[in-house]
């Protein structure tokens, strides 16, 4: 049985991507299960989707803990614990990741011995990001090696037909380009050997005791304890204030920021709370002297890591 796990952020179309892949498998004659999983959080939050495909009826249910293929639509999810990108990954698992960094960098960074493939980010244009699901699905179909171009195209037409001809065409183009890109690696994903509980060996990891509840759990009666949730992790672009051009009219950005994540310093200057800024860029669009700029979050983080002022 093929077990495939998609990771993305709410709004990137992972649910649809898993449906397309599932339908493509189905058209290829497989028994299929596909299901998304997400909590109460929506756009920007980590989203999972699972596809199982087998030649015989599938009796397995639930989330996929050990996948044959892990697809990551957004590389900023890798360090997010809640996203669980690396859950159950071993040398057998193939990882497909949407990232400008090379597979070698990811293999070294994550200390994994299995195969890693990357889909370079084509553009910074956020409007193009909505096609990332199609790109991932196209590449995945080729890596699996059992899905034909025709089945993939038909699946896209079936799943996206409602959205009109132009949307289907755009997604087809994205998916088939990625499909062809992975030609050299066709069929490199293999199904896992049957596992049984009887000969399960525990992994050699170090057990850490749980923290005392008073330390690990937040006080539920505390006021505004939601600040403990770092929604800054949602951000793909970072607004940066150029204080040389800031005219100090904090009442614009601080009031319009939907999250109230722009504080005002004693000097009367706005100060963005990057722990909680979700990167909507409303402040960038509204700043009267245009003193707030958007830079890619990964560029900002790389500069921070170098010790520079982001």
């Amino acid at each position, binding site marked *: 049985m093929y077990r495939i796990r998609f990771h993305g952020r709410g709004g990137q179309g992972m649910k649809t991507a898993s449906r397309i892949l599932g339908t493509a498998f189905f058209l290829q004659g497989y028994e299929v299960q596909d299901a998304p999983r997400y909590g109460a959080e929506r756009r920007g939050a980590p989203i999972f989707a699972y596809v199982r495909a087998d030649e015989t009826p599938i009796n397995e249910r639930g989330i996929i803990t050990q996948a044959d293929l892990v697809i990551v639509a957004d590389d900023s999810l890798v360090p997010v614990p809640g996203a669980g990108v690396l859950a159950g990954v071993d040398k057998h698992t193939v990882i497909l990741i949407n990232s400008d960094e090379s597979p070698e960098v990811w293999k070294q960074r994550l200390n994994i011995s299995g195969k890693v493939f990357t889909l370079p980010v084509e553009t910074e244009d956020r409007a193009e990001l909505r096609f990332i699901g199609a790109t991932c699905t196209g590449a995945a179909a080729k890596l699996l090696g059992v899905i034909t171009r025709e089945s993939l195209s038909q699946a896209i037409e079936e799943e996206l037909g409602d959205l009109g001809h132009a949307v289907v065409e755009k997604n087809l183009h994205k998916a088939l380009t990625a499909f062809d890109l992975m030609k050299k690696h066709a069929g490199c994903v293999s199904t896992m050997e049957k596992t049984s509980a009887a000969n399960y060996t525990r992994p050699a990891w170090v057990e850490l005791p749980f923290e005392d509840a008073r330390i690990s759990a937040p006080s539920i009666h505390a006021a505004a304890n939601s600040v*403990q949730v770092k929604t800054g992790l949602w951000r793909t672009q970072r607004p940066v204030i150029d204080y040389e051009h800031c005219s100090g009219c904090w009442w614009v950005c601080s*009031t319009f920021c939907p*999250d109230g994540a722009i504080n005002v310093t004693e000097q009367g200057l706005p100060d963005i709370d990057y722990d909680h800024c979700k990167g909507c860029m409303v402040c960038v669009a509204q700043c009267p002297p245009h003193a707030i700029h958007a830079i890619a979050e990964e560029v900002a983080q790389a500069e921070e890591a170098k010790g520079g002022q982001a």
Partner: protein
Amino acid sequence: MTEVKATFYRRMKDLPSTHLLGTGTPMCSGCGGLEALHQVYDVIGEKSVFVNAAGCMTLLSVYPFTPFRGSWLYTAMASAPAGAQGVRDALDILLEKKRIPPEENMEVVVLTGDGSAYGMGLSATSGAMERNLDFLYICYDNEGYGNTGQQYSGATPHAAKTATSKGPLGFPGFKKDLFSIWAAHKPAYVATVIGTEPVDLARKIEKARSLKGPRMIIALAPCPPGWDFDPKESVEIGKLAVKSGVWPLKEYIDGKVTHTKIPRQRIPVEDYLKHQGRFAHLFEPQCNDALINEIQKKVDDYWDEVQKTTSLDKE
């Protein structure tokens, strides 16, 4: 006449520079509802009990986290005003029996989306106004059932595409006039607001706070995923809604409706519609002039009527 003292909020500079509502909520990036709510909360303050009907904003307080500094109660979608009645009664009894001092009294605030306010919660709201319940009602109106994927609601505007209105003409119905429905109950106060007009919003919440009885607020809430636009456009689209006259800012008090911001030169509704994916079918593949003109005419007729009644007032 109800006496309303001069406002504290005369210009943008008077708005609060520290925000009471906690960050770290699971609301979408660029949420127009959250933008309005954090502004509202700065004026209401922490001595409040939020009674929240099911909707996007019930996710504000997901155990164990909450952005509120006061209390919060979750109710079913149709019954937030009934929940508010219970909370108000309980507080009144505690006050009467001197089990809490007057300074511990709290403002009871209903918070619901448009699905609840315009639709399934309307009868409970009508009942609460009928009983002259002393409460504040905040409806964040993103013109559809946003939390479940933007199915149409009683607040969906004509021709908008929703998850349940996917045809080439979009939603065939018309947005319900909830302001007038509420005002017909003759409550203490009814107002429309929007987060992109924060001074107008702060003044209205301030005014509502100074009154007793049912005080009803509808906040138009531009919704990036539901209306299909880039989150950074959220404020711009709200401003266009006001400038085009699609979202009139007004208040009802003492039996009289006053428009608090009349756009001097209304921009064409097209400028508002074309920024949103939910209206894209009006422009592509061909421009549906008939439908755009129909929407424009509705807006023009509304403001013509406003003009007539305002000039009558002056006579």
